[in-house]
C-alpha cells in the first residue's frame, strides 16, 4: 500500500469553530471610525453576522493538511484518468504565477502598465495558432465547454451574416462525443443530430454524407476520438462538410496526442478549442479553473470575442477591431489570465521539439499499456491508439464477476487513481463498462510497469476473490460511498450555517 491516510473523523471547520478564535488581524483603523448604521443610512442591513468558522491559524492549516491526505493527486499518485490528461504540473508555473506582477495585475490598470501582459497574450495566441494551423485565436473562454460554445457562436454569427442563420440550424455530433458537445450545441441554439460511430469510433463517411444537408451548420468531431483513435479520414470529412457549405469544429480535448504531429487546420478544421489544463499543464485544481482558447480559420476571425490583444506601432493594445461583427464577450475581462500564464510558461519550456515530443511520448505510453495488458483486459479496438486506450470489463464482468466500477475502486487500494469508467457510454462499447486509461507522457516506464502489475493482480483477484474487488476500496478513509443517498436525500450545507 502506498497511501497514507488521514484521520477519517476529520471534523469540519464549522464543527471545530469556537467564538473568539481567529487568524487574521487588521491594522489599526487610520481614518475616523464610523457607525455603520448611520454611514449606510437608507440601506437595509443584515440581522445577524454570517456564521463563518472561528479558528486559529494552526487548526486551519492542519485541517487542510489532513484533507490533503484524503485526496489522490498527480503529485502523489499515478492518475491515468482517461480524457483528462493528468500530466505533471511543473512547480515553476505556480512559483512565477505568485509574483506580484501577476497577483496584483488589476484589469483596469492603464494600458501602458499592461504591456508585458498583452505581449504574453499575443505570443501565446501565436503559439496556439502554430500548433493548430489556424490563423486566429481567442484566449477568452474560461474552459473547454465555454470554448465549444464560443466556437459555435462564431459559426452561427458567420452564417447569420451570410443570410443562412435561419436555415443552418443543425449540428452533427458523433454518439461517442463528450456530453459537453450536445449540451453546448443546444445552448447555442442549434438542434443536434447524432451520428452513430463505427465500432472503432471512427466516422462512417456514407452515414455522414446522408446526414449533411443544407440545414447543417457544422459537425463537432473529437480527434483523436474518445475511443483513443486518430480519425483517419479527417480530410474527407472536412470536404463533405465544406462541399455542403457547413463548418468543421474539432474538440481539442485529446490534442495531447497529435500536437506537433499534425495541425488540425491542415486537416480542414475551421474551429477548434484547446484545453490548456490538459494539453498545456495548467493544474486541474480539483476541477478547475482551466482555460479553453479557440483557434479559427481566417473567414471566422471577425466574429471572435473582444477585447483582442494586438501589437501596433505604438505598442500592445487590447482592441475591438470588429465591433459590428464580434459575438461579444463570453467571460468578463480577458479570460482566465492566470491559467494562460501557466500555459505560456510551460510552452516556453517545451519549445518546438518539446511539443512534438509530448505528442510522441503520450502516444507511446498509451500503446505500451495496450500491448502489456492485451489478453488481461478486453481492448475495445486493438489497433494503434493515440494518447489513451479503452479497455472494457468484458472479461471480468460476467457471471456476476466484478464490474468496471469495482475494478476502478480496487485500484485505489494500490495507490493508483482509477481510470475513467463508463465513458465512452456502454452504447458505444458493446454494452460493456469502458475503462479509459490515459497515462500521459510524463510518467516513466517504471510507473507504467507498476500499473501493469497492479492491473494483472486485480484481474487475478477478479477470478479468485471477486468479493474482495467488489467491496473495494479497503484502505481509504471512507469505504464505498453511498452516492444514491447523496442524490435522493441531499444535505448540501452544515445545518449551523443558516439560522
Amino acid at each position, binding site marked *: 500500500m502506498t497511501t497514507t491516510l488521514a484521520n477519517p473523523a476529520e471534523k469540519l471547520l464549522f464543527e471545530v469553530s469556537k467564538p473568539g478564535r481567529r487568524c487574521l488581524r487588521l491594522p489599526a483603523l487610520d481614518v475616523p471610525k464610523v457607525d455603520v448604521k448611520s454611514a449606510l443610512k437608507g440601506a437595509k442591513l443584515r440581522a445577524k453576522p454570517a456564521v463563518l468558522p472561528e479558528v486559529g491559524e494552526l487548526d486551519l492549516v492542519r485541517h487542510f493538511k489532513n484533507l490533503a491526505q484524503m485526496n489522490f493527486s498527480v503529485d502523489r499518485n499515478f492518475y491515468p484518468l482517461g480524457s483528462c490528461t493528468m500530466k505533471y504540473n511543473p512547480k515553476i508555473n505556480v512559483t512565477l504565477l505568485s509574483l506580484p506582477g501577476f497577483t496584483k495585475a488589476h484589469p483596469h490598470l492603464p494600458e501602458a502598465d499592461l504591456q508585458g501582459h498583452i505581449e504574453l497574450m499575443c505570443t501565446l495566441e501565436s503559439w496556439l495558432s502554430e500548433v493548430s494551423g489556424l490563423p486566429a485565436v481567442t484566449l477568452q473562454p474560461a474552459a473547454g465547454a465555454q470554448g465549444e460554445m464560443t466556437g459555435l457562436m462564431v459559426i452561427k454569427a458567420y452564417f447569420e451574416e451570410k443570410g443562412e442563420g435561419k436555415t443552418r440550424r443543425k449540428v452533427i455530433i458523433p454518439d461517442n462525443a463528450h456530453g459537453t458537445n450536445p449540451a453546448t450545441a443546444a445552448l447555442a441554439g442549434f438542434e443536434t443530430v447524432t451520428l452513430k460511430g463505427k465500432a472503432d469510433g471512427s466516422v462512417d463517411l456514407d452515414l455522414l454524407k446522408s446526414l449533411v444537408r443544407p440545414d447543417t451548420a457544422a459537425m463537432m468531431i473529437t480527434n483523436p476520438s474518445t475511443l483513443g483513435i486518430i480519425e483517419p479520414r479527417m480530410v474527407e470529412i472536412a470536404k463533405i462538410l465544406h462541399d455542403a457549405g457547413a463548418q468543421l469544429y474539432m474538440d481539442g480535448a485529446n490534442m495531447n496526442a497529435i500536437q506537433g504531429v499534425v495541425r488540425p487546420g491542415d486537416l480542414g478544421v475551421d474551429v477548434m478549442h484547446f484545453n490548456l489544463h490538459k494539453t498545456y499543464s495548467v493544474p486541474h485544481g480539483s476541477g478547475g479553473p482551466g482555460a479553453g482558447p479557440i483557434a479559427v480559420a481566417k473567414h471566422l476571425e471577425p466574429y471572435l470575442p473582444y477585447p483582442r490583444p494586438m501589437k501596433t506601432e505604438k505598442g500592445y493594445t487590447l482592441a475591438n477591431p470588429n465591433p459590428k461583427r464580434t459575438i461579444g464577450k463570453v467571460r468578463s475581462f480577458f479570460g482566465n489570465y492566470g491559467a494562460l500564464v501557466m500555459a505560456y510558461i510551460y510552452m516556453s519550456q517545451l519549445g518546438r521539439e518539446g511539443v512534438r515530443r509530448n505528442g510522441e511520448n503520450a502516444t507511446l505510453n498509451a500503446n505500451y499499456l495496450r500491448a502489456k495488458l492485451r489478453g488481461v483486459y478486453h481492448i475495445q479496438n486493438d489497433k494503434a491508439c493515440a494518447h489513451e486506450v479503452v479497455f472494457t470489463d468484458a472479461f471480468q464482468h460476467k457471471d456476476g464477476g466484478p464490474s468496471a466500477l469495482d475494478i476502478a475502486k480496487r485500484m485505489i487500494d494500490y495507490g493508483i487513481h482509477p481510470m475513467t469508467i*463508463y465513458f465512452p457510454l456502454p452504447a458505444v462499447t458493446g454494452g460493456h463498462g469502458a475503462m479509459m486509461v490515459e497515462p500521459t507522457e510524463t510518467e516513466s516506464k517504471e510507473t507504467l510497469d507498476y500499473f501493469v502489475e497492479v492491473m494483472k493482480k486485480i484481474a487475478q483477484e477478479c477470478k479468485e476473490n471477486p468479493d474482495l474487488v467488489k467491496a473495494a476500496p479497503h484502505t481509504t478513509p471512507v469505504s464505498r460511498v453511498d*452516492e*444514491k443517498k447523496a*442524490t*435522493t436525500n441531499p444535505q448540501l450545507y452544515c445545518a449551523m450555517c443558516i439560522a
Partner: protein
Amino acid sequence: MARPDNCRYLESHEWGRLEKDGTVTIGITDFAVEQLNDLTFVDLPEKGDKVTRGEAFGEIESVKAVSDLISPVSGKIVAVNDGVDGDDFAALKKDAFGAGWLIKVKPDDAKELDKAKSKADYEKQLAEESH
C-alpha cells in the same frame, strides 16, 4: 412478478393498458424498474397536457442516468399518479403494473396501442437483450 397479458409493451420498457372507461393507463415495466435500481427521481407532466405516441412525456432518473418516458398512444392526460411523481418509488418498486402506474391518457385513437408489442414479443425482446 408476472407481467399482465392485457398490457401492450414498448421496446423502451413502457407499458399501456386500455381500461374499461376508454382511457389508457401508462407505466414502466418491472424490468425497467430493476434496471434503474438506483432510481432517484420521476418527472411527470401535468393533468391536461398532451402526449404524442412515440414521444417523451416525462423522465426517470437514477444516480447516473436519465431516461425518457415514451408514450404508446397520443392523447390528453386525464390523471397523474401523484404517489410516484417526485422521489417516492415504493409503489413503483412493489407493483409496477398496479399502484406504480404513471399517467392515464384519454387516447385520440385507442387502436394505436395495438402497434405496441404483446407480452410474448416483449419477453422475447428481453431474452434477446440478455445475451
